Structures are given as C-alpha cells and as structure tokens.
C-alpha cells in the first residue's frame, strides 16, 4: 500500500469515526427517560394546550399519551374530521392534556418534546409530527434524534429546542397533568371529557363525537 493510500484511508477512518461519534444519541434528562423517577408536579396551574375558539360552547379535554397507538390512530384518522367539522366551525374547543402511561418508555420524553415545541408556539405542529410518524413508538429505540428532526422539520429553533429538552423544565407540567387525569379516574388513553362529562363512546368514530357535541349544544350545556 502506498503512503498516499494509507493517508487516504486514515482520513476516511478518522472522519467516519468523528461523524459517528457526533451523531451518537444525546443523554436524556433522567426525569424524562426510561426508568427515571417521576418529577415533582408543577404548581403553575397550566391547563393544557387548546385548539379552537375560546367561546366555543363545548370543550373536549383529551388525555393522551404520545406513545399510545390508539392515540396515534385517533390523531391521524379521526382528528382531521373533528378539526374540520367541530373545531373550525366554532362548536368545539379542544384541550390536550398529557397522560403518559408508565408502560411506555418514551411517553414523557415525547410529551416534553411537544411542550418544547410549545415554547416556540408550535405545540400542535409537534403534536402532529409525533403522531403522524409513529414508527418510533414501535421500535423501542431512543427517539431523541428523530424528535429533533421533527423539531427542525416544523421550523423550531434547534438550539432553543435542545436547551429545553436538556433542561427537562416542562416535566413538572406533564406530571401535574397526569396526576390531574388520575384524580378524574383516567386509566387509559385516549380518554375524553366533553364539558366535564366523560365520553363513553368509541374514540374511533368521529361521528359519535359529532352527535355528542350536537346534543350538548342543543341542550345548552
């Protein structure tokens, strides 16, 4: 092997290792990652993220887990119709609440990514990204890099997103939301409350939501 070839191979190896090292997953804050202790709940009274008119006659509160397949199916299949027929028409204000299930390794981490999107005014964009490309929930692999790609794709300031994720500062709000859900008897996801009443219909049928909303409006409640 000539000296030039040796140098070339050396540069290729060093460059490849450097790129691989740089791309290695970043550590997750303990309160967000698998096995981390539950953080202290925030006491700032944060009530979740809303979509729709503040003066809508019906409020739907959804307790959701970003890693939950049923939540993803609801978000992808039912939610577009609900947005079009109920939210955009001013009938419903939708409120998202986090309810990360303990059986899901990255549910808190995903909720935190959505909250970090919210810090830049893009909660719903991050919400949609996390549910639309839900393959991360099936692989069991650390999704931190994928979530960061989502953040960049939806136009977040990457440095601010990184700082938010590394700080874990939204974990308290997520825990407060989960505890609130527990107090209301939530045990699985998605769970819905329409004007404070638990929705007993099938979450995989947007027309049931529509019927329920219409009946609440007709009853003036």
């Amino acid at each position, binding site marked *: 092997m000539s000296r030039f070839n040796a140098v070339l191979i050396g540069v290729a190896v060093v*460059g490849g290792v450097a790129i691989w090292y740089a791309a290695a997953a970043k550590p997750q804050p303990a309160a967000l990652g698998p096995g981390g202790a539950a953080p202290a709940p925030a006491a700032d009274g944060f009530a979740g993220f809303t979509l729709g008119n503040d003066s809508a006659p019906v409020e739907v509160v959804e307790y959701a887990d970003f890693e939950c397949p049923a939540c993803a199916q609801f978000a992808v299949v039912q939610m577009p119709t609900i947005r079009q027929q109920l939210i955009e028409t001013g009938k419903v204000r939708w409120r998202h609440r986090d309810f990360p299930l303990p059986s899901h390794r990255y549910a808190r981490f995903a909720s935190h990514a959505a909250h970090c999107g919210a810090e830049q005014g893009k909660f719903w964009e991050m919400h949609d990204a996390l549910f639309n490309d839900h393959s991360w929930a099936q692989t069991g692999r650390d999704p931190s890099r994928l979530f960061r790609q989502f953040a960049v794709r939806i136009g977040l300031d990457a440095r601010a997103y990184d700082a938010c994720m590394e700080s874990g500062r939204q974990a308290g709000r997520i825990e407060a939301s989960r505890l609130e859900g527990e107090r209301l008897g939530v045990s699985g996801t998605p769970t819905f409350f329409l004007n404070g009443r638990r929705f007993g219909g099938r979450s995989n049928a947007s027309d049931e939501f529509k019927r329920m909303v219409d009946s609440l409006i007709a009853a003036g409640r």
Partner: protein
Amino acid sequence: MRRRQAITLLALVGCFVSLYLWLYKIGIIGSLQCGAGGCETVQTSRWAELLGLPVALYGVVGYAVLFALSLAALQPRLVTSRRLTWTVAALATVGFLFTVYLTYLELFVINALCRWCVVSAVIMTAIWVVAVLDLRAGGNPGALPRGQPTQAGI
C-alpha cells in the same frame, strides 16, 4: 500526481465537513463542536436551503464527485486524461464560485459567520487553486515539463 492527490484528500475532508453540517441541519447531530454560534444562525436562515434541499447536501454531493473524479484521475490508465483534468477544474470552479456566493451571504446578508462553513470555504478554495495549477501544468505534471504552454484559460 501530487496535485491530484492533494485534491483527493481535500475533497475527502470537505465531504466530511459538509456531511457534518448536513447531519446537523436535518437534526441527526445535536450540536456542533467548537461552538455552533453563527452556524445556528446560518443554518436556520432561509439561505440554508436551495431548491428545497439543504445547502450542505450540495456540498456533500459536490465534494463526493470531486473526490471520485480526482481519485479516478490517479489511476495509471487515466493519469494522462486531459478531459478528466478539465472536468475536475470545471467542477472546482463551480464549487469555488458557489463558495464565494455563500460567504457573501454570510458576511453581508445573514450577518453571521459559521466557522464550519469557513473551513469548507477554505478547502474548496484550496481545491480550486490546486485544480487550476494542475490544468496549467497540462494535467499531467509527471509527464509534461513545467511551464509548457497549455490551453488552460482560467
């Protein structure tokens, strides 16, 4: 021969630098070493994409092509190929002009200087200088005497 070897090595290093910036741009790499600083500003600006693709990706492809061509030009059966010399010089010129344009954007439009982009600019400039020298030398410094008139017009 040494000039072509230099181009090959520089293109390989440039390819890694562009790859690093591209992976950062698409979110695979979390933070840049030696301080992101201006890189964050540059990479999140609207100038960081061209025709819907990250500018850094053009760098990866450009350097990869330059690397492949200059490596091919080192092969014994192609070492006298004038066409290959011209192609490398032409591609290096396009890369150099693109680098000048990007540096202008950084300095006068975005008002932020990304140090990794500066590294890439230095590499591309060096490749262009060496490619032009190779062209002026007749594309085959091992076979042609130095100073021989050439058709190089750059």
